[in-house]
């Protein structure tokens, strides 16, 4: 089996809404795959189809080599899942919830469980209703990571975590990846995906608009530069890796391929810089810039 997840032409409708509109997704075995898209793009719906919680209207899909609707139970023996919106049983403690969920998959690895509780700084005695959003998420994360799985499906798992906990989470993803597991990580935060994922699929309005390695998507990982400089705009525009140069109120505004930053900055400092801001483009900006027109054309149909 070379592909952990293979989906082609997935369609899912809810009444008149087309939540998935011919979505393709391929995740190779052993890779950490980013699943990116703005809210409402169909990420969670896709994941629920992959889990066999929703039945596709058309298209083909296999997860770990099987049909997720027919063989959900068999697939789930080798799968760990963290939902995007974690709901806990109000009168069960966090520890009980973790044991229940791992127990259904065959039982937690106890040393792993203990270490995860420490790393995530989670009090397992608190009742479900007493946890904050971040802590509810930690309960689901510990339950997912406390027993080894072949495939980890994580739906926006860090949306409630602080930066320290986010790094704990990233360490866990790297651990399971180094052990050979496959990870599907859905997110609407580009930087998180950049740090963890080898390949990325970007969805928009129920379709995959881009899929490939991060290197393939260099155009998505450009840095936006706004600089006040004495350098000649035409010379800067000719530098390798510079795109979309414009002059705005005495400043130069352009994008640079991240791996060409070195050369561009060297050229700028040589000419003299009086002010500079560099920002990674937000996902929303990327979408606007790269798919804005196409999406706008498709919107009436959707």
């Amino acid at each position, binding site marked *: 089996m070379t592909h952990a997840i293979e989906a082609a032409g997935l369609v899912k409708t809810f009444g008149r809404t087309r939540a998935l509109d011919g979505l393709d997704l391929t995740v190779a075995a052993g890779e950490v795959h980013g699943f990116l898209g703005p809210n409402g793009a169909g990420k969670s719906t896709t994941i629920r189809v992959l889990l066999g919680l929703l039945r596709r209207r058309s298209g083909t899909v296999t997860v770990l080599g099987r049909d997720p609707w027919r063989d*959900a139970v068999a697939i789930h023996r080798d799968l760990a899942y963290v939902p995007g919106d974690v*709901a806990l049983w109000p009168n069960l403690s966090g520890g*009980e919830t973790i044991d229940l*969920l791992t127990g259904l998959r065959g039982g937690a690895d106890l040393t792993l469980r203990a270490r995860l509780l420490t790393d995530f700084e989670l009090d397992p005695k608190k009742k479900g*209703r007493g946890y904050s959003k971040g802590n509810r998420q930690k309960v689901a994360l510990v339950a997912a990571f406390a027993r080894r799985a072949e495939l980890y499906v994580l739906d926006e798992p860090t949306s409630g975590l602080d930066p320290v906990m986010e790094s704990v989470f990233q360490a866990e993803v790297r651990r399971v990846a180094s052990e050979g597991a496959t990870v599907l990580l859905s997110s609407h935060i580009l930087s998180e995906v950049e740090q963890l994922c080898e390949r990325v699929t970007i969805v928009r309005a129920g379709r995959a608009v881009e899929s490939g390695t991060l290197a393939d998507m260099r155009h998505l990982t450009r840095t936006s530069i706004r600089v006040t400089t004495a350098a000649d705009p035409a010379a800067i525009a000719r530098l390798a890796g510079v795109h979309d140069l414009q002059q705005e109120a005495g400043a130069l505004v352009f994008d640079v391929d991240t791996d060409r930053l070195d050369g561009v900055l060297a050229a700028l400092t040589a000419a003299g810089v009086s002010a500079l801001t560099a920002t990674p483009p937000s996902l929303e900006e990327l979408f606007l810039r790269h798919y804005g027109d196409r999406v706008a054309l498709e919107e009436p149909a959707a």
Partner: protein
Amino acid sequence: MIRMLGLQLRRDRLTMAVWILGTALLALGSVAAVAKEYGTHHEQATVLRLALANPSVLAFRGAPNGASTGSMLWFELFTWLAVVVGLMNTFFATRHGRADEELGRRELVAAAPIARSAPLAATLVLGVIANAVLGLLLAGAFAAGNADAADALTAGATFAVTGLAFLGVGLLVGELAPTGRSANSIGVAVVIAAYVLRAGGDALGTVHLSSLTLHPAWLSWVSPIGWGEQTLALTDDRVALLLPGLALALVTAVVALVVHARRDLGASLLPDRPGRAAASPLLRGTFGLTWRLHRPALIGWAAGGAVLGLATGSLAHAAGDLAASGSPQIVQTLKLIVPGGRGELVSLFLGVLMLLVGLLAAAAGIQGALRMRQEEAEGRAEPLLAAPVSRSRLLRDAWIVGALAAIVVMAAAGVLGWLSLIGTDPDVAARALGQALIELPAALVFPGIAALAVAVLPRAAVAITWALFAIAIVLGLFGELLRLPQRVIQASPFDHIPNVPFDDAGPSVILLAIDVALAIAAVVLIRRRDLTT
């Protein structure tokens, strides 16, 4: 404050309207029924004499005061309506108090430029208004039953004051309890305790058969429901007995306001107990989980079954004595109390009481089977179904827990009925137990219907199932009274249950087959649908 009042009124308009109108309609219906069934002085005297000879009837109903329609109404209605009014008020207080705070809505409001006590004060004002409206409507209901205006108003005021006492208690509990759930549990416990104290006081009271009156023991005098009952609003003029209820309302409300002004948002006097750090072996599977989730409710239902079983015991005993005494007049009167009208008296009594138990068991079963839907709608089924667990298994577990709940309720009622009769009348004791068990196949239809509805029409499942259950109640308890056609009454599974002793077990076997078929159909059909939130 005014805005808070508006907000709470807006949020609660439907819920409170249903509670208030429902209670008033219940009262109106009962007033009409009592007037129709015990219309004459003679009937009233017969029934009340029977009641006074039977402490368990006094505990179950209340204190009579002479043979009159007013006495009859107060005896039949007051304590039960007081329980409804008490629950309405404690639930109301929690809805706008601790539950709001726990779910974080209070934080939003408290950050606005309003006084810290404004939400609590608004709840108090709205509660007073609600109880006043309820009191007026109930006064109207009694006036419609030919009570004179002053008596009807006193009666309405008695209910309103009883309600206020529980409103104060509810507000105070909201300050003390850590969660909305625990606040509601404590509130229910307080209302039940008030009822039980009153029941004990009336059962242990001094009976005057000649005047058909009862002087309750001291237990009744420490219960808000006891104070209300003793106003004897429809037959006597003891308005002063409204004062203890008012005083309780005032004291609890003031203490609640003081505590509220001094404590932190989210803080509570009673701590939330920590749970276990690891799950017990019982909680390792979905069945263990479903059982654990349903256990508190199940204990409540079983306690209800046990109480009905005890009542069955003493009532059947009394009925047997009366039937043996052979006075045709009394037998005739008893047949009037009991809807139905076939079979001999003891069988009839057992049949009707066990029908009540059967309905209780059906409700417990419905709640258990619908658990699956609740878990699904609130997003907690998703992580389970993402583990190697099928939807069929979740629904099967919910149905089994529902069926077990129904069985536990019937068994509690049957065994306690049996225990309470075995010393005096072994034959009737066996019949009570038998009648309880024979109702089971009918009760088990309902968890099956609930499971099937969850499988096929998830979004409407809760409404459909409870609506069908309500229809079964109407058919079973009021079908003959309302003179519905026999074919319609037969739509209820309970109509096919024979009275013990019986010859033909056929209908029960068919019902059992239907129960199993419903469950299997549900478990198979749920495979075909999406997870639906």
